[in-house]
């Protein structure tokens, strides 16, 4: 703090402004890094938290920061890990993707943290990925995502498409007899990929015709849904049971559901199944017109287990808010944190390479009464739950997979990734091994494209 | 795509090698010629069938009550306002209605505004430097260098307008009268064939006014000068020929004495003045 104040006041008093200013910021930065180094000699294990606390993503991410802090406090109450206390190092990437990379570098290089829990959006993960690989850090990523990635340094504790989207659509077909699908999404990578996977899945596995699939993308924060809802209504009024599969993101949901309600589309006519609407998103919505619409997650706050009730009570005590809600990414951090702690105990060290070896195969209980295991592809096993919105902003679980599902890093429904697999165990240690060519990092898509370009 | 095409068609605009405008042709008569010019704003006819000719080297004063259309007429001549109908010619070769302000300016029509506008952030010297007749395209301007000849010319004008001592000061600190002179100085630097001067003595002291009168009469002969002025005393002191504008057209024209004895002019003027007094 002093450093910055000194820096700010310099130019006011001196003549040769540029030099002093640069020198001052330089010195203060040096002082910062020196302080960081001195701390590194101390005992506590450092846990980095890389969640936006300001900007547009703060809505979703700031609760995850609190979750990790709560988990760290709980762990410390139990005596820490390896006889050392845990210490949270919180930075704010401010919903700015380049800043994510910078902050990740700060955590790893400046603060020398042992592990990082963080990120929400895919783009922020993509931005920090090179940093974690370069500096050999560990990142636990807690949000459902589009898959098509497996990094040696990242552990994906959220759902891959086969742990959320595909079971959800199977539920629609098998349990609800849906025959037409409107795939609505916000225009970014997660909905694009999920919808492509679903499209391929619907056509290949269930023989759904082209005209029975409608795909539409809208920009972030889209607020005028009149036309699209009208179109969906028409799409759904042609005799076949129809459902909307929504990958609509964040803020755009409120006006979307409102328009649905006002145009008289209710869950009985055209149910909407959402992959990005959880308990937290519902706190900003008048849920009365939404009752009966669906969401697919790996955890709901309404899960009826003692572990979950304990978690909720701890969360309410931690936040001091009686109305505080829990959601799926929080559970993912709960699982990820416990897995990491277990791996540290197993390895007897926090050294990243040792953890990477130790964590594969680690099994910890989740909050819905089953167990999560870390797979060799750095994804975990999860149950898939389908919930219906209730008028109190909670979900009523109407269906769940009989057992847990292991996450696929590479989807079998995308031509580019069909032959890829990830295995971070020795001796393979490869995130994109091509079973067709037997090479790590290769793909038949290469030859196909070369042929295509040659034509 | 059409943008690109229009760019291509307008490559003339980016051609820095266009020769300077050809000299004014005054062999066949007046230097400025307005015929049947009409312009209206929201239905109000600011200029109504105005016809006017200015001879080469003439000093002409234009008077008229407020709203007679004096400034609008200036706007039309300098290309700022386009008339609804009519013709405006500079010499017998240049149709001013087809040209924009810089083109008109580089033909040699200089204008002094009613409210003095000088570049306040620049020094007096720099103001004159910018006004100087020179190659005003981009690259020559970028690479332009100061030399003795230019400096001499600027000094000469500084001398004329009496601002030599203030040459290095920002024009923003000048007094009102000094700004008026600086602006006239800028006009002189342009070496115009035709000078349009809008209320040059507004806000000047008696002494300053005299100097200004000297300046303007000294210019006539070499250049044509059109002065729009309210101050009758000043007009009388410089005028050879006077045009009276009223409601957008010419009411009377002639020497000061002729004009001031014209009953229509008296009526318009006295009426207007009486009105002004009541406000």
């Amino acid at each position, binding site marked *: 703090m002093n450093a910055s104040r000194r820096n700010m006041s310099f130019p006011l008093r001196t003549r040769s402004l540029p030099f002093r200013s640069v020198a001052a910021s330089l010195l203060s930065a040096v002082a910062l890094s020196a302080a960081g180094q001195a701390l590194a000699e101390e005992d506590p294990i450092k846990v980095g938290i890389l969640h936006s606390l300001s900007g547009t993503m703060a809505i979703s991410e700031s609760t995850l920061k609190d979750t990790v802090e709560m988990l760290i406090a709980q762990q410390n109450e139990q005596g820490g890990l390896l006889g050392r206390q845990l210490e949270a190092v919180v930075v704010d990437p401010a919903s700015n993707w380049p800043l994510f*990379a910078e902050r990740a570098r700060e955590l790893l290089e400046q603060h020398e943290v042992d592990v990082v829990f963080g990120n929400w959006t895919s783009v922020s993960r993509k931005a920090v990925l090179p940093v974690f690989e370069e500096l050999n850090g560990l990142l636990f990523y807690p949000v459902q995502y589009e898959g098509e990635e497996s990094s040696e340094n990242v552990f994906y504790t959220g759902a891959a498409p086969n742990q959320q989207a595909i079971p959800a659509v199977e539920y629609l077909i098998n349990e609800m007899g849906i025959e037409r699908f409107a795939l609505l999404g916000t225009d970014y990578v997660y909905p694009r990929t999920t919808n492509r996977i679903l499209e391929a899945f619907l056509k290949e596995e269930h023989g759904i015709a082209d005209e029975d699939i409608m795909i539409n993308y809208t920009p972030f924060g889209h607020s005028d849904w009149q036309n699209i809802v009208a179109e969906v209504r028409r799409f759904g009024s042609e005799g076949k049971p129809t459902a909307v599969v929504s990958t609509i993101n964040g803020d755009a949901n409120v006006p979307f559901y409102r328009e649905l309600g006002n145009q008289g589309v209710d869950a009985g006519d055209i149910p909407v199944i959402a992959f990005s609407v959880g308990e937290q998103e519902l706190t900003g919505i008048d849920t009365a017109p939404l009752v009966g619409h669906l969401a697919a997650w790996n955890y709901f706050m309404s899960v009826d287990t003692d572990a979950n009730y304990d978690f909720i009570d701890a969360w309410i005590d931690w936040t001091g808010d009686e109305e505080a809600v829990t959601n799926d990414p929080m559970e993912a951090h709960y699982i990820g944190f416990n897995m990491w702690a277990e791996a540290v105990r197993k390895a007897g060290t926090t050294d990243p390479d040792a953890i990477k070896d130790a964590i594969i195969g680690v099994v910890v209980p989740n909050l819905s009464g089953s167990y999560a295991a870390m797979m060799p592809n750095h994804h975990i096993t999860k149950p898939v739950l389908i919930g219906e919105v209730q008028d109190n902003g909670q979900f009523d679980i109407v269906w769940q997979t009989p057992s847990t599902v292991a996450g696929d890093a590479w989807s079998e429904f995308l031509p580019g990734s069909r032959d890829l697999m990830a295995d971070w165990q020795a001796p393979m240690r490869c995130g994109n091994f091509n079973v067709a060519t037997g090479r790590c990092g290769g793909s038949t898509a290469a030859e196909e494209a070369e042929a295509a370009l040659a034509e | 795509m059409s943008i690109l095409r229009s760019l291509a068609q307008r490559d003339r605009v980016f051609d820095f090698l266009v020769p300077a405008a050809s000299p004014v042709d005054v062999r066949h008569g007046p230097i400025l010629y307005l015929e049947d010019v009409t312009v209206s704003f929201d239905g109000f006819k600011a200029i109504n069938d105005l016809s006017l000719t200015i001879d080469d080297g003439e000093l002409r004063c234009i008077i008229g009550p407020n709203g007679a259309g004096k400034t609008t007429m200036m706007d039309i001549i300098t290309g700022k306002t386009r008339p609804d109908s009519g013709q405006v010619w500079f010499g017998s070769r240049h149709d001013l209605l087809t040209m*924009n302000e810089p083109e008109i300016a580089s033909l040699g029509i200089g204008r002094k505004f009613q409210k003095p506008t000088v570049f306040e952030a620049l020094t007096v010297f720099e103001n004159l430097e910018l006004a100087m007749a020179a190659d*005003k395209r981009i690259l020559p301007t970028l690479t332009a260098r100061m030399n003795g000849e230019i400096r001499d010319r600027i000094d000469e004008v500084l001398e004329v307008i009496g601002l030599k001592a203030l040459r290095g000061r920002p024009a923003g600190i000048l007094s009102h009268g000094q700004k008026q002179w600086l602006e006239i100085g800028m006009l002189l630097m342009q070496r115009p064939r035709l000078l349009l001067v809008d209320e040059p003595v507004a806000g000047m002291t008696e002494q300053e006014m005299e100097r200004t009168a000297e300046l303007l009469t000294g210019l006539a002969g070499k250049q044509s000068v059109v002065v729009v002025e309210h101050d009758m005393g000043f007009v009388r002191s410089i005028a050879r020929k006077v045009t009276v504008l009223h409601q957008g057209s010419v009411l009377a024209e002639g020497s000061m004495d002729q004009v001031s004895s014209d009953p229509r002019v008296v009526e318009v003027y006295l009426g207007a003045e009486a009105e002004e007094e009541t406000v």
Partner: protein
Amino acid sequence: MDSSRLWLLRPFGERSTLIFLGVLLAAMTLVTLLHVALAPGHPLYVNAYTVNLFGKYLSYALLAVAVDLVWGYLGILSLGHGAFFALGGYAMGMYLMRQIGERGVYGHPVLPDFMVFLNWDSLPWYWLGFDMAWFAFLMVLLVPGVLALVFGFLAFRSRVTGVYLSIITQALTFALMLAFFRNEMGFGGSDGLTDFREILGFNLRSSETRLGLFLASGVALALGYVLCRAIVTSKLGRVCVATRDAEARTRFLGYRVERFQLFVFVVSAMLAGLAGALYVPQVGIINPSEFSPLFSIEIVLWVALGGRATLYGAVIGALLVNYAKTYFTGAMPDAWLFALGGLFVVVTVFLPKGVAGLLALRLRQRRDDGGSLSGKEASA
């Protein structure tokens, strides 16, 4: 010939430029020495993170200089300079993307990962050529330049100035942001371009390359500064100032104001593009949020804080605000927007001439010791 070269050298005769360059050079040398010569762990050691951070600040500083050129000297408040910055960044990003080659996760030799991912079978035409460094670097300047040329040509020709121009530049960058967010555009949608490996054969993940990029940013800033300085000290610069203060008058003097505006606007856009191209390899990602109107307005704040129409003020402003941002978002994230918002208000209301203005005021007061004119001038 001689004279046309001379205008570029003119700034070297100015004391302020020499001081600026001297300080910049000294800072760059110091950082390099502290980074290279000292062992990690030494209290004065500058680690790669800090070098990288400074490199980013320097590219921002170049961007600020570009904005100051049009705002400070031409009076055009562009709220869309982020667009030129981002376009330069995208051009560089496309080059870096092509350099990944077979090392992408899908191992495709030609197509970037996101195209394989979206099932494209060939490279769109506008990606062709970006595997060649010279072409990409040319595009870094040309793409923003051409956009500025077309946009500026239309705007200046119809004399859209002042507030209107500010608003439509904002609309321009907003429209581009929406466009680049679309995945169909072929620029990676919201994820943008990332996962870069190397630049001109140097590994982007090594600290030597990072140092190199930091130095390159410093050199680019120095060159950009000298170029802008040369422009503003020329007669053309004075025409710009004249245009800023009295556009109509300048026209009546025979200057084709719109061409001067266009020329300077295009130069400025190209500099912004260059800044973007230096920024991207240092932060490792370029995505459409760089087009956000918020960012463009923030750039203007840097310039306003540092002081308009001085160029070095823009550099000071960019460094100060970004350092404050780094500090605040780390130490008290909630306070950052308050601080930023407060800065906007305080600077415009109380510090219209920015830090550089304060500095100049002090200097003058010291020089003519109670001189009566200085106060008047400062307020004029």
